[in-house]
């Protein structure tokens, strides 16, 4: 008999615990952030240094490290040095969320840069909005700014402006019937939706629509189906290594149609992976690939070449578009900090970021507003063609 009584007591305690939990701890105070006095401005950075997006986090970290060193060497912002705190989300939404909570509560950052992936970026939203800390994401998914949040900004060119830009270029080159192939990752699915929506007003019709899964060994089956629909041109919307395989498979299948793409294939690995099949491939993305795209002698050109030269000298390789997104994210925060009068609270910094107008970055000229937290337009994009194993400006 004694045993059951004790167990009943035990269960009531647990029930009590639950009840306590429901009531929540009274006196939860919000403003436990340290005051930003003469001490350094702390900025949190959440990127993927391991997991499937490990290839993005590396260049992003290099770009930010380089810029922090430069800014601090020039005396920081209004006398405050900048301190960067990195967190690796390992391409995992749960880790990204834990990381952002640590940065906000533990480290007391006044802004968060990241994450590299769309999923991880979205996982942080609840905590970003609860704590009221501005976030600039390097992830390209439209959802980041399509589902508008006053605290969340974005630096890459979202599919909703790149896709129409590329479709119009295809129509301009005279290719009306296009075959589309996209991967089932976040970027591919997002791009595919925009392609389907904006094909009509761009003046093209989709004659074939195929998809593939990241990690697929061979795409000839899909390409055979696309060849069967004899399109004028092929549009590839994908981010992974498989894009190069598609170009090679297409050429092997004697498909002579030109191949078009977006920022997803604006990677050196695409050219080296596809080999000759990359020749003649056209893609629309920011101007970082060929600085002349900014227009020689213009301020945009100076900013871009200075970043590209310093990055190449520091790391022995040219920066890719992900390094460019990180450079812009960090630059936008520093620029906004400069414009904040008095004490740089996260709320004041958010307003300053939203007020950014015409800040010249590598991805383009950023102008944010209450409705547009992406800040880029089609003018920041340009069409390239791959010739001789490198990017050239298409006429």
């Amino acid at each position, binding site marked *: 008999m004694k045993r059951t009584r004790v167990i009943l007591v035990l269960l009531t305690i647990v029930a009590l615990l639950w009840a306590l939990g429901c009531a929540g701890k009274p006196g939860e105070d919000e403003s436990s952030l340290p005051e930003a006095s003469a001490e350094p401005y702390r900025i949190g950075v959440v990127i993927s240094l391991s997991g499937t997006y*490990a290839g993005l986090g590396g260049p992003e970290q290099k770009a930010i490290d380089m810029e922090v060193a430069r800014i601090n060497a020039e005396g920081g912002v209004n006398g405050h040095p900048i301190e960067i705190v990195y967190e690796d989300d390992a391409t995992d939404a749960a880790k990204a969320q834990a990381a952002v909570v640590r940065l906000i509560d533990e480290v007391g950052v006044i802004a968060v840069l990241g994450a590299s992936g769309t999923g991880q970026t979205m996982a942080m939203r609840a905590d970003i909005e609860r704590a009221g800390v501005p976030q600039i994401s390097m992830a390209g998914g439209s959802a980041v700014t399509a589902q508008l949040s006053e605290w969340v900004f974005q630096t890459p060119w979202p599919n909703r402006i790149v896709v129409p830009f590329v479709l119009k270029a295809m129509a301009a080159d005279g290719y009306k019937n296009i075959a589309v192939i996209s991967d089932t990752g976040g970027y591919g699915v997002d791009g595919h939706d925009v392609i389907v929506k904006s094909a009509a007003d761009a003046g093209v019709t989709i004659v074939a629509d195929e998809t593939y899964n990241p*990690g697929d*060994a061979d795409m000839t*089956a899909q390409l*055979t*189906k696309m060849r*069967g629909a004899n399109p004028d041109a092929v549009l590839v919307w994908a981010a992974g290594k*498989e894009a190069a395989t598609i170009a090679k498979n297409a050429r092997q299948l004697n498909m002579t149609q030109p191949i078009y793409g977006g920022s997803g294939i604006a990677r050196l*690995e695409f050219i080296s*992976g596809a080999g000759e099949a990359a020749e003649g491939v056209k893609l629309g993305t920011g101007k970082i690939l060929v600085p002349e795209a900014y227009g020689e002698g213009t301020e945009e050109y100076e900013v871009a070449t200075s970043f590209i030269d310093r990055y190449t000298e520091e790391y022995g390789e040219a920066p890719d578009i992900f390094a460019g997104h990180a450079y812009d994210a960090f630059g936008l925060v520093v620029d906004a900090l400069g414009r904040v009068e008095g004490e740089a609270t996260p709320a004041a910094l958010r307003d300053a970021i939203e007020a950014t107008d015409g800040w010249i970055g590598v991805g383009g000229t950023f102008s944010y507003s209450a409705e547009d937290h992406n800040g880029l337009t089609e003018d920041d994009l340009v069409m390239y063609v791959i010739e001789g194993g490198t990017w050239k400006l298409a006429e």
Partner: protein
Amino acid sequence: MGSAELLQYVVAGFKSGAIYALVALGFTLVYGSTGIINFAQGEFFMLGGVLSVFYYRLGLPLLLAALAGVVTTAGVGLAFERLALRPRRDAGALVLIIITIGGSMVMKSLTRHIFGPDEATLPEFTPGPSIAFGGVAIERQALWLWGLTIVAVLALTWLYRKTRFGRAMRACSLSHDAARLMGIDTARVVMVSFGLAAALGALAGLAVTPLTQTAWDVGATAGMKGFAAAILGGLGNPVASVIGGLVLGLLESLSVAFLSSTYKDAIALIVLLIVLFLRPQGLIGRARREKV
């Protein structure tokens, strides 16, 4: 659907089918001599590609780099068997599976630390445009793939049928105790089987790299599809594994032709489950009853 186009789908199916077949041969080899499924087989496929690229970038000519890639991966297979599997050799299948799962985690992650996250490729063995054959385009590298598969399955069948070592391996697959009674050094047989399976996986990995590039995380999909192929054909029988691989490749390609490409991957999974549930011994293999 013209006949040329249908043939193109068949060629595409047999191309990826050959990849699955080579990986499946690795599964069959290890299963044949140890009775367990080597969950790290997919990583041997990955290592074949990554190591060959590493040697190629060191400046070795393509053929030498490929050879070095296969030999090094075989070394990894031997070392893995010797260090991780040998101590628990007589443990149940469950324990051995867990060791191979742990092994695949370490190999995959270690490769990323050593060789970096970005993908890489190798030049085609014989560069040149695809060969037109009755309205169908066949990539030269695909010919290499089919050639290597045929050579591998012939070599394995010859090894099993004609050599003393092959007979020892078949004895082990029936019963380690009986084999030991015959004076067969079962430990050596198991170790060599792992080395050979690693080499076969590496061969598939590097032969496909010029087509689809290689990276630290290509092992998982290849491993899963290779196993589906091996079990579809019938585990333990080399020819059955190759047939399983080709059939699986064909099913995937035709599913794109007649259904839609989103189901391409699901096909391999569905085939895997159906075969497992209905006929674990596969299309050709014989059922192994557990005697009471």
